[in-house]
């Protein structure tokens, strides 16, 4: 479970998030939509503290995962990131073999047991619906896969270390329609075991995959409700305008 309380976020002097409070429940899919530059990625990257990599940032408010403030003193960022996996917009496999890509998280966590690693790699690839396509070429470079396969490989890589939350930042925006459909189907399956937060600029996608949707604009959370309700009967006029395509 993720919860934010009155979060303000600044890049230097620029306020990218304004007073955002939100709750995402276990084993649900939450989608963030909104025009580009409205702060969706910034908000998403709060949950695994990826924003920490950027110099001169500043956060106000609270950000809790399972009740614990992840920005509190003494929180180990690498431990947090093992619990909160992430899939990026562009597929970004390592220049390693397919197998080693998936095994990466296990290895950096000090896992040595060969059988366990092999088993975990297979399970993860299966969860990412990629096993059948790659089981005969695990030792081949990940770069030999198609874009859609690479993205599913990145999902498998994130799943391998058994996170409880998976963050996805426009995971299908660089993919063709068939690969996109596969990823969406996958998200649907993953919901059983993971809490998923997905950023998308594709409203149909949000409608198809998510249970709840948050609509952002200019750093503010305009509306947050059940996806069905949001798309059929939004409360705010701005939301209505955005999903009917009047701007964005």
């Amino acid at each position, binding site marked *: 479970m993720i919860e934010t309380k009155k979060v303000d976020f600044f890049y230097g002097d620029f306020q990218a998030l304004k007073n955002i409070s939100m709750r995402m429940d276990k084993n649900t899919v939450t989608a963030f939509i909104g025009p580009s530059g409205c702060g969706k990625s910034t908000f998403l990257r709060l949950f695994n503290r*990826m924003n920490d990599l950027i110099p001169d940032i500043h956060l106000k408010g609270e950000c809790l995962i399972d009740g614990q403030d992840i920005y509190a003193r003494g929180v180990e960022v690498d431990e947090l990131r093992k619990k909160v996996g992430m899939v990026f917009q562009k597929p970004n496999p*390592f220049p390693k*073999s397919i197998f080693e890509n998936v095994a990466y998280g296990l290895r*950096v966590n000090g896992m040595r047991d060969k059988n366990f690693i092999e088993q975990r790699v297979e399970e993860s690839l299966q969860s990412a619906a990629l096993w059948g396509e790659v089981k005969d070429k695990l030792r081949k470079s*990940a770069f030999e896969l198609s874009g859609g396969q690479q993205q599913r490989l*990145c999902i498998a890589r994130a799943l391998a*270390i058994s996170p409880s939350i998976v963050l996805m930042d426009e995971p299908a925006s660089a993919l063709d329609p068939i690969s996109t459909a596969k990823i969406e189907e996958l998200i649907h399956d993953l919901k059983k075991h993971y809490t998923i937060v997905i950023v998308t600029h594709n409203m149909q996608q949000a409608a198809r995959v998510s249970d709840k949707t948050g609509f952002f604009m200019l750093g503010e959370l305009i509306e947050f409700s059940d996806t069905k309700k949001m798309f059929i009967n939004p409360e705010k006029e701005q939301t209505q305008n955005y999903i009917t395509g009047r701007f964005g």
Partner: protein
Amino acid sequence: MKKLRKILERVIEAMLTVSGAVTSIAILLIVAFLFREGLGLFKSPTVERGYAVYVNSANPVQSLLPWQLKEIFDFQIENWNELGGPDEEIRVFRFNEIFSLYTDEQLDADNDYALLPERLAEVIAANPAIIAYLPQRYAPVEDESVKTVQTGTITMAQFFLGRKWMPTAKPAAQFGVLPLVLGTLMVSFMAILIALPLGLGVAIYMSELASERVRRLLKPAIELLAGIPSVVYGFFGLVVLVPLVQRTFNLDVGETAFTGSLILAIMALPTIITVAEDAMRNTPRAMREASLAMGATDWQTIYRVVIPYSLSGISAAVVLGIGRAIGETMAVLMVTGNAAVMPHTLFEPVRTIPATIAAELGEAASGSSHYQALFMLGCILFVITLIVSITAEAISKRKHEVGV
């Protein structure tokens, strides 16, 4: 309008093609020239052109090798039986001696020493154990008592396996490159051994750990170091490193292979650092983020993702560093003591290939075998660098294809 642009594009394309072709051909021609001049060495006679070696006809020895000639004239071989001849002490005869044996009149000096060949023949005929190194211009007439010894041409084996480099020795110059090749490899290898870990360390620090401000100060400073002329480094080496090495290791002389390695390492560092750092910084942000997002630490990300990803750039850094080390002339010439002898330890004077070329090319007569031997050294240098870059290429390629 459109047509004009097309024509212009064609012209530019053609110009680029031509300049590319010209450059490639020029490079090939330079290499071809190098090898043509160099390979001429193996057709050159062992003894200087215009000279020959003569013995008494009674002497059964038919031919002599360069090192045998050298040792005979250095009095290291003193008896013919060491060369398969009779048990007789060798009498070495040098051309000058003839002037103390005969007066100018006896040699008919006024008449361009017309009698010189005859007199020389007399001397050789009179002494069955004699060996004489004489200009062919005044060559004694060959008859029952005088014969020429075959000295042959310089062979590849003598050149590549010879342990003595004495390019001006008379009567037979010694072109054994082994000490020079070993000297070069030793100095370069040691230099790389020092420079590589240091250089990569600094590169990692600069690209991954240093703050933007430190980096902005450090980077131009290091790039500046790369531009300092090598004589300046050599001078620094001579004034600072040579005494330092001498004192630290308690040596008789501070000009050693190790001193050369140190100065080369210092010189290769800026290149290695800048090239490797650029390569590492070029690792896409997405790669680092992917690694960090999996809970990898900064350090794990560096050695498991950044370094493998930038491996081809890093090997370029290594090649350039080694290239600089192997090809560097001046600084090494100044601090290694320049002794063309077989090196046994790092703490002896050595002589490298480039230093030899630089030091001797001026005094070698164009077209002489010494001159050809120096070109051959150039060829060896070329081949060594070629091997280094091919190896580096192969390594970086393999890692990239298979993944680590």
